[in-house]
């Protein structure tokens, strides 16, 4: 349909301006900007203002204080470990869902999204039941750093699976068949053909998962707790709020926010690169978690 529209002679440019019902484009834009400013940007401006309210020197001393720095380092390291684990297992699961057939496949496919649907505090509660001191399998990792990794693996699993899956569906199997007929083994085919084709989706999924992991709070709270050695940045911020050190909390928040924004920027760059190579377009539209799938303003055919 899109191809058809692109072929149709000249799209009437006048008609395009009429398409916003009730309000004109200008008023509509005003409403959208006001809504975003009031509900999203204004609070964030207050956060930035507060973090710098006692000067940049105070900001740095808050961020670089022992506990703050440790909590930021801890969440960075844990998030890196988690996205590495989920990059591997997420790709395997996506491969199984697309290329394999096994009983219960549609249930597995549906349950992948469970971490999106399940409240994070419930995730925390059930993880501590399974892997806590009352563990039915006798493995107690609650209130340790391993618990942080497990909780983050739980909440970020769908990001990678759902980013890779559509690319695998779209992939042309003739290439693999050709490689196989030329004598390539399974691993060579994966390394030389499948993996390069999955890379844009995998990278976007990993970046999204990383951004999510950096800020995760609820699922870590009960399971990993807030002991000095398991205190990730979000928990540290929560504790600073409770003890009334709002400037310290907002300073660490700004650093955490900056790290996540870098992730979003990377996703956008990957998408630009992907759309230039006509690869990752599909996956990002189909990713239920959505992404920075940025419509680059206006109708793409213009």
């Amino acid at each position, binding site marked *: 349909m899109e191809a058809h529209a692109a072929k149709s002679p000249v799209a009437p440019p006048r008609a395009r301006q009429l398409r916003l019902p009730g309000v004109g484009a200008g008023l509509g834009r005003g409403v*959208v900007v006001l809504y975003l400013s009031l509900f999203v940007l204004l609070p*964030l401006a207050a956060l930035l203002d507060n973090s710098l309210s006692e000067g940049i020197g105070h900001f740095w001393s808050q961020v670089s204080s022992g506990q703050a720095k440790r909590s930021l380092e801890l969440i960075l390291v844990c998030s890196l470990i988690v996205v590495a684990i989920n990059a591997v*297992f997420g790709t395997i699961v996506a491969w199984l869902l697309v290329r394999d057939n096994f009983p219960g496949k549609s249930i597995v496919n549906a349950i992948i999204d469970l971490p999106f649907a399940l*409240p994070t505090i419930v995730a925390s509660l059930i993880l501590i039941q399974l892997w806590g001191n009352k563990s039915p399998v006798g493995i107690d990792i609650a209130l340790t750093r391993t618990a942080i990794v497990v909780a983050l693996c739980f909440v970020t699993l769908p990001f990678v699976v759902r980013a890779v899956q559509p690319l695998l569906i779209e992939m042309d199997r003739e290439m693999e068949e050709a490689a196989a007929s030329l004598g390539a083994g399974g691993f060579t085919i994966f390394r030389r053909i499948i993996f390069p084709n999955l890379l844009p989706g995998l990278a976007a999924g990993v970046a999204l998962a990383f951004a999510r992991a950096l*800020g995760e709070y609820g699922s870590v709270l009960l399971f990993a707790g807030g002991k000095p050695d398991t205190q990730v940045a979000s928990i540290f911020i929560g504790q600073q*709020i409770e003890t009334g050190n709002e400037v310290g909390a907002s300073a660490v928040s700004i650093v955490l926010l900056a790290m996540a924004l870098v992730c979003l920027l990377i996703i956008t760059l990957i998408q630009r690169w992907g759309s230039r190579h006509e690869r990752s377009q599909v996956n990002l539209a189909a990713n239920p978690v*959505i992404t920075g799938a940025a*419509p680059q303003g206006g109708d793409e055919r213009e």
Partner: protein
Amino acid sequence: MSRATQSRWGLRFLGLGYIAVLLIAPLILLFYKTFEDGLAAPFEAITSADGLHALKLTLLTVAIAVPLNTIFGVLCSLLLVRHKWKGNWLIDAAINLPFAISPVVIGLSLFLLYGRQGWLEPGLAEAGIKILFSTPGIILACIFVSVPFVVRETVPVLQEIGTEQEQAAETLGANAWQTFWRVTLPAIRWGVAYGVVLTTARVLGEFGAVSVVSGNISGETQTLPLFVEKNYENFNLPGAFGAAVLLALLALVVLMAMNLLKRKEAA
């Protein structure tokens, strides 16, 4: 057994084992733990005054935050896709912000804006409006965290359907509202619905942002996820598990709706 079959079984073992250990086992254990001593205790906890109040408050936030973000989302998607403007990239970037921000940080920024020394505090105090530690603060937190979902689901669908039918409708004399209700909305409805489901799930389960702004007062500013936490910390496990199971059941309904809508969208 050939090498290909061997590696297939190997991958099945790894992939399905991971899903089983990480997702399925905890979920089954949740239901088992809740109901191992019978239905009475968890049921009593949910139907206690505090439990019912938490449920009502949670549903109220859904009833306000979800429609607001849906209307905003559809309007915003139409603007981003159909109306070229040099500021669109900025709107787009601002919409993605809640994905990049930790829930606690969202709570904190609202806390600072409406709190004791916040920018808006003088005016609000004078008008006698209480935002923090009351229902409006909880709703604001839920709106913030769930702003992006409808937009992110609707934009790709709008791009995909193109403008041909809308132009045809206009050529035939339909006005903007008629075109929207009869042509555009029916074409994007499953995408919008999917976004609404994701928004609802997020609002139902939001914990971090709400916990900072609500004060977590039982029977007053406690939503269901906060009810779970407080009961767990007070060692009232039947209460925590009863509410957790209720939230998990809602999550399963959300999962089913997601799958149904995906199929509709694909059809």
